[in-house]
């Protein structure tokens, strides 16, 4: 025993010393650990990704390989294989988004062949089951102007390229498919009858030429060695009086050469002769394709009937109908249907099994089976999202009933006495108790029910309204990504479309109200759509077509007595329209600005109510860049954001007051410069007074349309040409150590005469960003993180303290700012989307949720990715691996130990007292 004490003593001291050192390590690492990532078991709990391919340009059924697939080439320059049974993407290749990635040809035989580009062209061969590249060669045409009119097809393992020179000849070149070797020189076929209305039905090139009333239908097989021209007068096929000159090929990629004349008759070319099919075209706006079945060719037509809905009908060439392929679906309102491809096989029981891939005018893709069953659908319009709005859901009926009890007006109406109010209270409490008992009982069964469209406890369940380029509006549930409603407006041109939330769902019985302001497709006039975002129905102004072009629009800050914010429209002649009209007298203290992109002029207006109507008065005009520059981006602050504190506390306990101007707008312009190649100018403009608050110039740089602006700071990205890297520049605006106005006084842009102090800093971004946004929370208590979507498909979160101008040293009490380093760190654990890459991201949207620590983020582009971000970690919720069991066990153990010790100690005392 004695030896033990010797043994323990030095070891104990050593142990203490070691622990002391460890203690420092623990403290040190906890300060440095700025990691913001999630745990591996949280994957998929609150994030999802949806992959899209885009509007289908060419498609072909791949019947050769074992797994049945459809190979698709889209307008978004994507080559993908879709599973035949489910429609999911098996493999996908995304080409460049510029014209160098345009897909000119898709050919599927045993291998997939694509021709991409626009002079120079790249011919690639892919394996159809795995999608791996097999061969690739490049082709450059000498004549660049006419290159857009080239036509491509594959014939006998040769790639045929045809370039028509209208009015003179046709150049045909044939290349070996796999190696690109040319069998000979380019063949030049004389064809003076070609014009730009000609169509290609491989390998025949067909035109209508000649003078009016005596036109000829001419066709030539461009691949044959002998030049054989088929020529018939057009009068044989159509009535020349009503002919409007339209000649179009059949849709789908039928192997049979055929075309449609005048949208009425179908002409096939067989044995070097024109053959008019007895079946006529049912609907001029529909789609026609020819299928080659064992019995002979079949004409398949699809169109949208007014009464019967979407219809498909098949006829043989002799005119007899194939009844098993007929379908008419009244519910499926597919606008402008187009048959992308179709394949028919004979099943074992001699029955015709057909699969038809139909693309709609709203970019949706449906796979149909004979008899009319839709196997699957894809909404490819979501590959091109233009604007996004997060909408709060209304409270459940029970909660609304409870809250209405406290509403003064309603209470005064309904309850005249105290006893009535008391009984009402008892009722609501009883209802609450009932729901509690039900929820406890039905906990197992509740999982089958879909999430009702009500607000959840933390406010994380929201509805996302997405406006897509093709004019389709979707309402999507943010927790699951499921589409709740859709609305298609074909005449909506969404370039520059804006969404306004005119009324949230917080004011029952009034519905939530959002308005989308866009343009009319044909006239360019304003088009306004107002709908209820929870249900997707049109309300209020509904679909309103204006008769003037719009300059800009905004909403009024004051709601009217129905809690609706009025919509103010400024049109081309500087007249103001206010919707609803009754809200015009509420207009006051409203200012608007309109920036002209090409001349970099910003014009400011004051919107005033002159007793009868609202008018726009020109107030200020700023010409940025002296006329030679153009505006790249105009970024204002979010209208709903709040600022948490009016100043920053310095280490010596003085306050550096922030310059919080809610009317500040960042304008990024770029232009050529005589001395330096390109110049980027960032200007902070006060949009109410027109004052230029701060500006910064970057030489030999190209502007990127990415900027974030919030509170008193902003950051924007540009490409530095001199050093060939992307940089991010930040500006922070401060009033100084003394305030300019009294605490709590209202900020007025027109009354400020001083310019704030600016702190600037720039950093290098070691990646190519495609989108930028700032996280947003309800009260702005949490830190703000800059979210950057990189072209590599990653979404990276950069804490604002890495971008601060005053880096190094201690900022507010205790927070150690990292020292200045010129390059921003983008580590792997700062990626929000771990290994789910988002192809071609375009924009990031961040919205606040009910929790102060959490912000909801949606990335759009070719793919949609949604996740939740907690910039300061979730400080207001218990962490999800909170070990309840350990704590209860320890607590119970300690209580037990306390009581037992008390008992034993009292016994021992008693025993000692008796000694």
């Amino acid at each position, binding site marked *: 025993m004695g030896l033990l004490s010797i043994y323990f003593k030095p070891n104990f001291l050593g142990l203490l010393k070691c622990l002391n050192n460890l203690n420092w390590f623990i403290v040190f690492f906890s300060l440095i650990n700025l990691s913001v990532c999630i745990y591996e078991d949280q994957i998929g709990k609150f994030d999802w990704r949806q992959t899209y391919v885009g509007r289908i340009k060419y498609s072909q059924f791949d019947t050769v390989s074992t797994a049945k697939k459809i190979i698709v080439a889209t307008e978004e320059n994507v080559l993908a294989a879709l599973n035949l049974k489910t429609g999911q993407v098996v493999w996908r290749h995304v080409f460049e988004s510029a014209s160098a990635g345009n897909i000119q040809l898709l050919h599927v035989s045993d291998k997939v062949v694509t021709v991409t580009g626009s002079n120079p062209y790249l011919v690639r061969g892919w394996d159809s089951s795995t999608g791996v590249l097999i061969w690739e060669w490049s082709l450059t045409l000498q004549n660049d102007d006419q290159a857009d009119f080239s036509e491509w097809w594959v014939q006998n393992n040769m790639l045929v390229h045809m370039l028509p020179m209208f009015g003179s000849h046709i150049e045909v070149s044939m290349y070996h498919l796999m190696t690109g070797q040319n069998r000979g020189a380019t063949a030049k076929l004389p064809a003076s009858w070609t014009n730009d209305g000609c169509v290609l039905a491989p390998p025949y090139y067909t035109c209508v030429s000649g003078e009016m009333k005596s036109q000829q239908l001419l066709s030539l097989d461009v691949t044959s060695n002998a030049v054989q021209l088929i020529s018939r007068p057009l009068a044989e096929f159509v009535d020349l009086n009503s002919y409007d000159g339209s000649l179009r090929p059949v849709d789908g990629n039928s192997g049979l050469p055929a075309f449609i004349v005048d949208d009425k008759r179908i002409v096939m070319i067989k044995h070097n002769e024109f053959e008019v099919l007895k079946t006529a075209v049912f609907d001029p706006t529909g789609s026609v394709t020819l299928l080659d079945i064992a019995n002979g060719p079949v004409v398949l037509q699809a169109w949208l009937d007014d009464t019967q809905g979407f219809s498909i009908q098949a006829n043989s060439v002799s005119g007899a109908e194939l009844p098993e392929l007929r379908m008419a679906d009244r519910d499926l309102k597919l606008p402008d249907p187009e048959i992308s491809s179709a394949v028919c096989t004979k099943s074992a029981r001699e029955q015709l099994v057909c699969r038809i891939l139909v693309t709609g005018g709203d970019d949706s893709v449906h796979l149909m089976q004979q008899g009319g069953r839709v196997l699957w659908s894809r909404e490819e319009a979501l590959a091109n999202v233009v604007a996004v709005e997060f909408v709060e859901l209304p409270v459940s009926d029970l909660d609304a009933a409870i809250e209405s009890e406290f509403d003064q007006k309603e209470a005064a109406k309904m309850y005249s006495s105290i006893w009535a109010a008391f009984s009402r209270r008892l009722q609501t409490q009883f209802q609450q108790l009932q729901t509690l008992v039900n929820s406890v009982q039905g906990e197992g069964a509740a999982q089958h029910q879909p999430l009702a469209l009500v607000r959840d406890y933390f406010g994380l369940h929201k509805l996302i309204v997405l406006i897509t380029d093709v004019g389709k509006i979707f309402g999507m549930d943010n927790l699951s990504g499921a589409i709740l409603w859709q609305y298609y407006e074909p005449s909506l041109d969404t370039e520059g479309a804006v969404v306004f939330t005119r009324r949230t769902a917080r004011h029952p019985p009034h519905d939530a109200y959002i308005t989308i302001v866009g343009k009319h497709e044909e006239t360019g006039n304003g088009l306004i759509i107002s709908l209820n975002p929870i249900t997707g129905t049109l309300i209020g102004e509904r679909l309103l077509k204006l008769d003037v072009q719009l300059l800009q629009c905004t909403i009024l800050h004051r709601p009217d007595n129905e809690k609706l914010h009025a919509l103010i429209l400024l049109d*081309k002649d500087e007249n103001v329209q206010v919707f609803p009209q009754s809200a015009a007298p509420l207009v006051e203290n409203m200012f608007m600005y309109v920036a002209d992109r090409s001349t970099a002029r910003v014009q400011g207006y004051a919107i005033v109510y002159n007793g009868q109507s609202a008018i726009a008065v020109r107030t200020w005009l700023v010409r940025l860049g002296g006329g030679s520059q153009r505006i790249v981006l105009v970024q204002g602050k979010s209208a709903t954001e709040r600022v948490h*504190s009016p*100043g920053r506390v310095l280490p010596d306990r003085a306050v550096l007051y922030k310059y919080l101007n809610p009317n500040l707008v960042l304008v990024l312009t770029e232009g050529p410069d005589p001395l330096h190649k390109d110049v980027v100018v960032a200007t902070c403009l006060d*949009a109410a007074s027109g004052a230029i608050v701060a500006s910064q110039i970057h030489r030999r740089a190209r502007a990127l349309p990415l900027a974030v602006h919030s509170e008193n700071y902003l950051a924007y990205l540009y490409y530095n040409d001199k050093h060939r890297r992307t940089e991010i520049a930040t500006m922070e605006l401060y009033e100084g150590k003394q305030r300019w106005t009294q605490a709590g006084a*209202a900020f007025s842009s027109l009354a400020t005469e001083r310019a704030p102090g600016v702190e600037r800093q720039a950093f290098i971004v070691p990646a190519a960003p495609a989108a930028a946004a700032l996280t947003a929370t309800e009260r702005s208590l949490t830190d703000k993180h800059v979210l950057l979507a990189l072209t590599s498909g990653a979404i990276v979160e950069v804490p604002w303290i890495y971008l601060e101008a005053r880096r190094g040293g201690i900022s507010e009490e205790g927070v150690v700012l990292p020292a200045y380093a010129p390059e921003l760190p983008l580590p792997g654990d700062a990626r929000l989307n771990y290994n789910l890459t988002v192809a071609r991201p375009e924009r990031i949207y961040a919205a606040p949720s009910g929790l102060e620590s959490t912000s909801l983020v949606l990335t759009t582009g070719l793919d949609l990715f949604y996740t939740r971000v907690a910039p300061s970690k979730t400080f207001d919720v218990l962490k999800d691996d909170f070990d309840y069991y350990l704590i209860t066990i320890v607590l119970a153990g300690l209580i037990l130990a306390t009581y037992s010790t008390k008992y034993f100690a009292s016994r021992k005392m008693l025993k000692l007292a008796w000694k």
Partner: protein
Amino acid sequence: MSQVKSNKKFKWALDFNQKTRTQTTELPSPPGYSQSTNASYTETSRDTDSNLLLIKKLWDVALGPLKQVPMNLFIMYMAGNSISIFPIMMVGMLIVRPVKALFATQSTFKMVEGTQATGQKFVYFIGNIVNILLALYKCQSMGLLPTHSSDWLAFEEPQTRVEHIGGGLSLI
């Protein structure tokens, strides 16, 4: 023993009368005793002495807090300016003790009578106030007192805006 042998007839009788008279004159005085000092000691000086002692004691009590000041200064210096358990405990102690002493003034000066009572109470009071001021100074140097405007920053109302804006790039 010898006296008992001479008086054999009276075996058990002892006679003290003759001897005590002669011996009283022969008894020496105890060492250090002088007969002159006995007379000068009067009774009245006992009262004043006790009074003076009391007052002196009370003065000690009254000056007690002031004597604590140097030690408090030293404790403050050693405790340091960081915010952790030891300095906070020290500061807490520095504040609570004088405050408690102030409240207990009545009971400490319970037995006082006399003219200097108010003066003593005043000095005691001042001493405790000085201690409290020292503790407050310590709080100030630790940064606990809300003297700067940065401390009232969180209570300010958010700034409202007068003008509202809208607009952007031209939609044409």
